[in-house]
């Protein structure tokens, strides 16, 4: 596309543009710092799974008895694991992504970032949020939803800072001196818009106090929204921005052209459209309605090719530059990163097949899968980008290629050890837990801890692998530090001719929307939705409509394909319609899944069974359960699998968690499922098990929770909490503060008395009593008819 000189400026006038590389340097340094913090937290958490003493008792040893405790609440696994995940996702990859986006966007737009103030605000805002997270998560302040644990005031800050980022980015696009958008920018646009949508919807909640809130959605609705968010945090926070970064830095480092533009087009749009539908694959074989499970599985399978499109475009860009891998650490890291991306995106669809998922879900296989993506794809791409950037940002040479090579091999061996151990661990424990004998009539391994004992050596191998990876990252930090010290910070410059978009390249709304590609996509989507939700005749009609649309699209593309290409070229010069289409492609899957779920699966529509409401004391106990992060290791969802039912009791019904705000179905069974634990053990058993799990189960790796017997339950906040529960749709009756106090006191006294009869002395005010009350309620439900009768 040719560019005409501006009419207002002198034709051919050139201006010198100085890029803002200071922000890039800061984001990069922050990313390295938080990367070390986050990975160290991960290594500590991993050690806790092997050695329960790492939950606090080890402090007693290293201080020679000065600090006496059986478990320190601030570093207990349930609180540390969210700190690890939040730190590596939002702090490490977040800052890395911002460094890459700020650096490459300026160069791809040939203009300085629109506002230095917004860049600074973005940097400080984001990193202060991370500091706030690092304080609140160990303190036990959490929303109880994975990767969405941060409390509501911080949520608002995140949303605001994201808007700052978006404003800065789109403003820069508007000011660009480059007529069209390069593929990296497409991925950045998709990232910014989609993450905003996901984050806001999954964080909708109503505060009960300054530090606590209940999510708007509960039960199955919350589960669906959570994994729509959780899965697409992986898609649009850990994948699309890094793909954009790959598209800029890979050809730069390889000094080779990108392999295929049309592959970029096809894989970008299919990836953005398909990814968002795949969330329910985190809920396979659960109480989630079948049509959603099937959509989750099938779209995950269809995601395989789009993902591999990105891998191909990355790896094949190296054609003609493979020999450079021998000498250039940057390309080494990039090639490994993209390869791990390909491996993870093959493994993901595989794990989404319902029968495979029956083994892998709740097991270490998922942990291995995730780390293949994060350590392999995100970590390696980050390292490659940092090694490429540092010499350019400080105008010098990389301090040591040898050290970078050492980092590469340390990281590579670390990942392989980690992922390999987790595969073996996950598959063997998954198979053990599902195994039956005597013609399928009894469980082969009825004792849960027997299966845990079998994977302990593998969990240790994981710790070693993770530590090796972290050690490599220290080498990176040192290498970058020495590189920076050997040079001077320098901001890149470019001389550009003053340019103006060709008038003919500006697209009006009619040309944007009324054209064959958009019309056929629109009709295909319309007929697809009618097929999903229509009545009998409408469905039949819509299937014919869908086939007809595809045939027309195919015929038109065969005959007049060039017009499609020209339209797309023109679209690339128009950031606004491009962004609108990107957002629409990413939003549609969520709308189709979430809207019907929110409308249909409400408490009043529940068939079969519905859960009995928690008493105020049980609700308080539940909030303590969430505070301690118990959901990180205990699921509350018995799947529709025979071995699950044999082990834990009847499969969980949709109505049995319908009042749970937030839902607690869990994602990993480091311990057994507890959906029906209520009434299974005595209060005294729970007392012993919570304070010292090994006193009732010698092989347990659960942390001890001695502080629950010391701290007092927060009864004062219950009035506000019950009010919010009513607001989000839980049918609690109005209760005055004194009624709540009386109810909690009565129930707590009864439990404390029962415990005293068993020789356990505890005051009824203690948190442990509330937790026991909650645990004994789990699995209590009634037939829907009874519930209605009781209400009237």
């Amino acid at each position: 596309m040719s560019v005409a000189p501006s009419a207002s400026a002198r034709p051919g006038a050139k201006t010198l543009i100085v890029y803002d590389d200071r922000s890039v340097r800061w984001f990069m340094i922050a990313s390295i710092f938080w990367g070390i913090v986050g990975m160290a937290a991960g290594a500590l958490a991993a050690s806790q799974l092997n050695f329960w003493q790492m939950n606090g008792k080890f402090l007693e040893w290293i201080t020679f008895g000065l600090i006496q405790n059986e478990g320190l609440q601030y570093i207990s696994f349930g609180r540390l694991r969210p700190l690890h995940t939040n730190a590596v996702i939002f702090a490490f990859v977040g800052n890395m992504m911002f460094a890459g986006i700020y650096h490459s966007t300026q160069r791809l737009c040939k203009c300085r970032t629109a506002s230095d103030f917004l860049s600074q605000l973005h940097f400080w805002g984001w990193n202060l949020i991370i500091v706030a997270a690092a304080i609140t998560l160990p303190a036990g302040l959490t929303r109880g939803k994975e990767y969405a644990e941060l409390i509501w005031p911080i949520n608002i800050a995140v949303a605001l800072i994201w808007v700052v980022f978006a404003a800065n980015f789109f403003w820069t696009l508007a000011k660009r001196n480059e007529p069209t958008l390069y593929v990296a920018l497409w991925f950045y646009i998709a990232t910014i818009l989609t993450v905003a949508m996901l984050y806001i919807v999954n964080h909708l909640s109503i505060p009960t106090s300054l530090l606590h809130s209940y999510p708007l959605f509960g039960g199955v609705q919350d589960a669906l929204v959570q994994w729509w968010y959780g899965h697409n945090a992986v898609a649009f926070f850990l994948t699309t921005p890094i793909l954009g970064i790959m598209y800029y830095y890979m050809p730069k480092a390889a000094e080779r052209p990108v392999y295929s533009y049309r592959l970029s087009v096809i894989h970008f749009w299919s990836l953005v459209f398909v990814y968002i539908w795949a969330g329910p694959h985190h809920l396979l074989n659960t109480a989630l309605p079948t049509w959603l499970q099937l959509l989750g599985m099938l779209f995950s399978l269809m995601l395989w090719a789009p993902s591999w499109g990105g891998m191909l475009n990355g790896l094949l860009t190296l054609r003609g530059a493979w020999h450079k891998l021998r000498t250039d650490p940057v390309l080494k890291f990039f090639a490994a990163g993209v390869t791990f991306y390909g491996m993870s995106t093959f493994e993901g669809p595989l794990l989404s097949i319902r029968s495979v998922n029956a083994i892998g879900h709740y097991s270490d296989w998922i942990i291995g899968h995730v780390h293949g993506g994060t350590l392999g794809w995100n970590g390696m791409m980050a390292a490659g980008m940092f090694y490429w950037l540092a010499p350019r940002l400080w105008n010098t040479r990389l301090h040591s290629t040898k050290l970078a090579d050492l980092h590469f091999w340390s990281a590579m061996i670390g990942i392989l050890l980690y992922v390999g151990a987790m595969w073996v661990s996950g598959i063997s424990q998954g198979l053990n837990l599902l195994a039956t004998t005597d013609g399928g009539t009894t469980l082969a391994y009825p004792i849960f801890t027997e299966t845990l004992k079998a994977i302990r050596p593998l969990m240790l191998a994981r710790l070693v692998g993770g530590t090796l990876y972290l050690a490599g990252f220290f080498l990176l930090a040192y290498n970058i530090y020495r590189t920076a010290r050997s040079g001077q910070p320098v901001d890149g410059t470019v001389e550009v001719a003053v340019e103006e978009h060709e008038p003919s390249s500006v697209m009006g709304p009619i040309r944007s929307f009324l054209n064959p590609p958009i019309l056929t996509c629109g009709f295909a989507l319309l007929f697809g939705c009618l097929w999903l939700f229509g009545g009998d005749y409408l469905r039949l009609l819509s299937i014919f409509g869908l086939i007809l649309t595809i045939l027309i699209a195919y015929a038109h593309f065969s005959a007049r394909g060039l017009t499609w290409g020209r339209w797309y070229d023109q679209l690339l010069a128009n950031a606004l319609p491009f962004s609108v289409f990107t957002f629409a492609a990413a939003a549609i899957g969520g709308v189709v899944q979430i809207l019907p779920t929110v409308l249909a699966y409400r408490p009043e529509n529940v068939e079969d069974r519905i859960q009995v409401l928690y008493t105020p004391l049980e609700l308080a106990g539940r909030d303590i359960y969430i505070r301690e992060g118990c959901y990180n290791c205990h699921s509350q969802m018995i799947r529709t699998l025979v071995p699950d039912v044999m082990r834990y009791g009847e499969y969980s019904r949709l109505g049995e968690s319908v009042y749970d705000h937030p839902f607690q179905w869990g994602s990993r069974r480091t311990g057994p499922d507890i959906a029906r634990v209520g009434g299974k053990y005595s209060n005294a058993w729970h007392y012993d098990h919570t304070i010292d799990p090994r006193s009732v189960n010698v092989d347990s790796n659960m942390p001890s929770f001695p502080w629950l017997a010391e701290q007092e339950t927060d009864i004062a906040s219950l009035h506000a909490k019950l009010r919010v529960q009513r607001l989000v749709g839980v049918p609690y009756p109005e209760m005055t503060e004194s009624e709540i106090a009386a109810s909690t006191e009565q129930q707590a006294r009864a439990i404390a008395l029962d415990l005293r009869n068993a020789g356990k002395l505890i005051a009824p005010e203690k948190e442990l009593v509330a937790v026991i009350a909650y645990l004994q309620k789990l699995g209590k439900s009634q037939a829907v008819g009874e519930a209605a009768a009781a209400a009237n």
Partner: protein
Amino acid sequence: MSPEPSGQPPHEDNLRPHTYDGIQEYDKRLPNWWLLTLYGAIAFAVAFWFVHYEASVVLPDGERVTQELNRVEAVKLAAMVDKLNDPYLWQASRNSAIVANGAATYKSVCQACHAPSLRGKAEDPKYIGANLADNAWLHGGQPTEIFKLVREGYLPRGMPPRGGQPLSDTAVLEAVAFVLSHHREGEPIVVEPPPVQ
């Protein structure tokens, strides 16, 4: 993918006209195997949806599980021969293989409450389980009565069914045989009835 001299695009390729900050793009056609994967996955998805959702050939998850569990129960019922009587259990308690299996189950499940010595509370108040080594029994001391109690539990006193683990009947039997191996047939039995709750 043989190494090619850098900077020399393979001659069959056409580069896109535009350059972005020095980055060029080929426009190579999509690999056939990749297209096959894409179209294959879409075709599979449509077919799978038809079979599992539209055609209702496959049972809904809940019904499938219920059906399978019915089958399991039928097999179990058929296998239940009337061998569980007191002499049979006494005999089992003298079989070293059965007692060894029972000892292992006792160690991982029962011992936490009933103490390694079987003496439970009498050993140390920190144990919450009853004394299994003396002649006083809360719920009847005949072998079949002990077996029934272990199988069904008695929560008011803190005894969960099957010790709180999904143990098979065989495992329960072995554990009971292990306990009985500490007793003699015909020894005096004192029964204290459980308190009324």
